[in-house]
């Protein structure tokens, strides 16, 4: 799966955390630690599988795949990312 950051949100980086403001909802979101890292990897264009592989290598003793998928769902629900349809040039 391929995701991309939403384009109509404001973002600030603070002490390693990411803070977002979604003007459509008026809501703010904080991402810390791993969630912020995942968002950054999405921003850099990595696919979901690549992100899971990269983080799994950093945490070889942990089963990270399920947790990362949960983060993807939360980012989608918050409107901070969107899923790129397969076959799209986006």
């Amino acid at each position, binding site marked *: 799966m391929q995701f991309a950051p939403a384009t109509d949100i*404001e973002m600030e980086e603070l002490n390693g955390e990411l803070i977002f*403001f979604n*003007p459509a909802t008026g809501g*703010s979101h904080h991402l810390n630690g791993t969630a912020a890292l995942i968002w950054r990897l999405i921003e850099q264009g990595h696919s979901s599988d690549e992100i899971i592989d990269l983080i799994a290598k950093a945490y070889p003793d942990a089963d990270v795949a399920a947790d990362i998928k949960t983060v993807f769902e939360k980012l989608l629900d918050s409107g901070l990312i969107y899923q790129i349809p397969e076959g799209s040039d986006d």
Partner: protein
Amino acid sequence: MNNLDILCQLATHPFPGKALQEQLRQQAGLVDDWSGLRAMVEHHRIGPLLYRHARSAELEMPDDVLSMLASVYMQRKSLARSRDGFITTLVDAFAQQGLDLLLLKGSALAHNAYPEPALRPMDDLDILIHPDQQHAALETLTALGIKARLPSTARERVWHHWPAAIAQLNGQALSIEVHVRILNRRLPDYGGIKEMRRQPAPLMIGKTATKTLSPEDFLITQTQRLRHHTEIFKLINIADLVGFAEAHQDVVDWRYLNNHHPGIRYRYALIQSLTQLSDSLCDHLELKQKAPESHIRTRALSYHGWPQNNYLKKLKKERIHPATLAWQTIAPSSAWLALGYGTRQSPGSIWRARLITHPLEIVKQTALALYYG
């Protein structure tokens, strides 16, 4: 003196130098109770500005406070972007019809007194049109989907702006004040486009060219607004004056202002107690450069007497004791007298303002309010 108060006052400089950044750092280190900050930045509209200082000067503050300021900043950044897109549409529409349009107050200040528009929160747009082009302006606004109407009663016709026009921006209502005169009728009359003494100044909104008042007219009228008895003081008003003067100091005719409008200079002398002006600006204003050492309570910068208290009472549904109101009316703070009327801060000048200027101004503004509505 409340350390949070002092921090917010210091933060009213949109372009702080190294010395002021160091003062901000030191002051932030003295704050031990941040709980009042949210209410303070909301009222005084300095959240985005304080956030910018917190990032650039690396101010020490609790994470949740910084996050709060970040959220306020991002919200205002998003609003500023939408608003600027709307202003661009408005400017283009007026230009296509060959109509005069100048941006006033916050809508101009956001672009010529601050490093970025998000630092200047505003809730409405103020534009100045030519009094002979009102019908054409109404057609242009209506064609853009803006709900507007011309003044229709005798009172509305002498007022300085039309009844509020309303535009829809991303599902939110945006109020537009269409001015035919620059200042409220209760203040010294400065006229409108026909009476302007100096050529309008160019102003860029992104890549769109528009116009605003000349720097001298801007400073004269912005400082006059401070004497309006029912205008609610906010620290962003100080930031406006500081940012505008610092940004335009090389083009303003300071000799003219110092000679013909000395009240402006005296107001900046008071502002020196709040935040640190640059050496070069102090030279232009013929003021001795000094760091803000003796601070004034922010509350003392506001007028709390009649008729403002009546107005605030209605807004907040508060009761105020008549004796308290009477005292605040006849004995406003010396800081407000200096800021509102542009008096020197010497005892003689303050007493003259208290005993003569202020009572006369109450009578005058009340009479004008009754006459013009």
